[in-house]
């Protein structure tokens, strides 16, 4: 099964895909922005500030999703010695960090009109900040390790430690009294969000997912060319 993850096979797809993904991203983002900024209704309590949700929530979902995928691939890559899984993880992490920063900054902007403060050391916000630090540590580990084996080991340890924080982020609003509101969207039970707000949110989530795919493809190609550059040095 793992032969399908060989760089030769993947590169033939990743080298052609970015331009199509970019085009699709622009189309979906345009629809999402029109829905989020113009067509969706204002909230009866939060008024127009609720529109910040359309960038804040998808960014938070995607940064959590990317960190979970990075951890899973690092762990499987380390156990089964699949170098390409580390390459995929390394290429995913930069967009994960950027989405984490977007979630923190837009959350802070949302906090000012809603709670009257830009920042609070609340369980959800603090655990999200901690996740950003794990992303930074992960990316630094790749930069400082000259030896591949050492980098694989160190990045796997960082992701395993960081993944402990992911359920804490998810359930922090239930476990502690926080300023942050509880989840409005539940997969297993009925969501408390109206469809007029849910659809723009899902469209923006799709746009953000496409953007992370685009960055991943570009970054993965760059990493493969870097490896090939080293290969040319040996010839």
């Amino acid at each position, binding site marked *: 099964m793992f032969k399908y993850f060989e760089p030769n096979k993947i590169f033939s797809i990743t080298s052609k895909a970015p*331009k199509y993904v970019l085009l699709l991203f622009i189309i979906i983002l345009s629809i999402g922005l029109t829905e989020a900024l113009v067509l969706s209704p204002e909230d009866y309590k939060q008024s127009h500030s609720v529109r910040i949700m359309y960038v804040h929530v998808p960014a938070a979902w995607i940064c959590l999703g990317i960190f979970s995928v990075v951890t899973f691939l690092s762990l499987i890559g380390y156990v089964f010695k699949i170098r390409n899984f580390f390459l995929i993880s390394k290429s995913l992490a930069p967009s994960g960090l950027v989405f984490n920063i977007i979630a923190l900054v837009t959350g802070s902007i949302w906090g000012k009109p809603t709670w009257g403060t830009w920042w609070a050391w609340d369980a959800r916000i603090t655990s999200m900040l901690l996740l950003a630090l794990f992303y930074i540590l992960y990316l630094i580990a790749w930069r400082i390790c000259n030896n591949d084996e050492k980098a694989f080991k160190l990045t796997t340890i960082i992701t395993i430690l960081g993944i402990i924080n992911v359920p804490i982020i998810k359930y922090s609003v239930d476990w502690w009294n926080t300023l942050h509101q509880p989840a409005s969207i539940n997969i297993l039970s009925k969501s408390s969000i109206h469809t007029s707000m849910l659809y723009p949110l899902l469209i923006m989530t799709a746009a953000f997912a496409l953007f992370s795919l685009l*960055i991943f493809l570009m970054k993965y190609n760059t990493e493969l060319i870097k490896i*090939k550059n080293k290969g040319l040095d040996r010839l």
Partner: protein
Amino acid sequence: MINEIILMDGYGLYVWSAFAFTLISFTTLYIVTKIQYIKENKKFIAKFGTLNSESAVIAKSQSINKQILSNNSII
């Protein structure tokens, strides 16, 4: 209508700054990633040019190398 979209009952500054920050972050990440890609691609092409004919034949036999050389402007 336009004023309503821009001002948003006094929340415009917060809403627009959140969206602007997101789009600026996207653009920055895209440009940085693209620059890194172009830099590595140029380095590869330059290195390939310095190979002797025997090494160039070996390098060209690898499918990824051929694809890198033929995909200079993929993004």
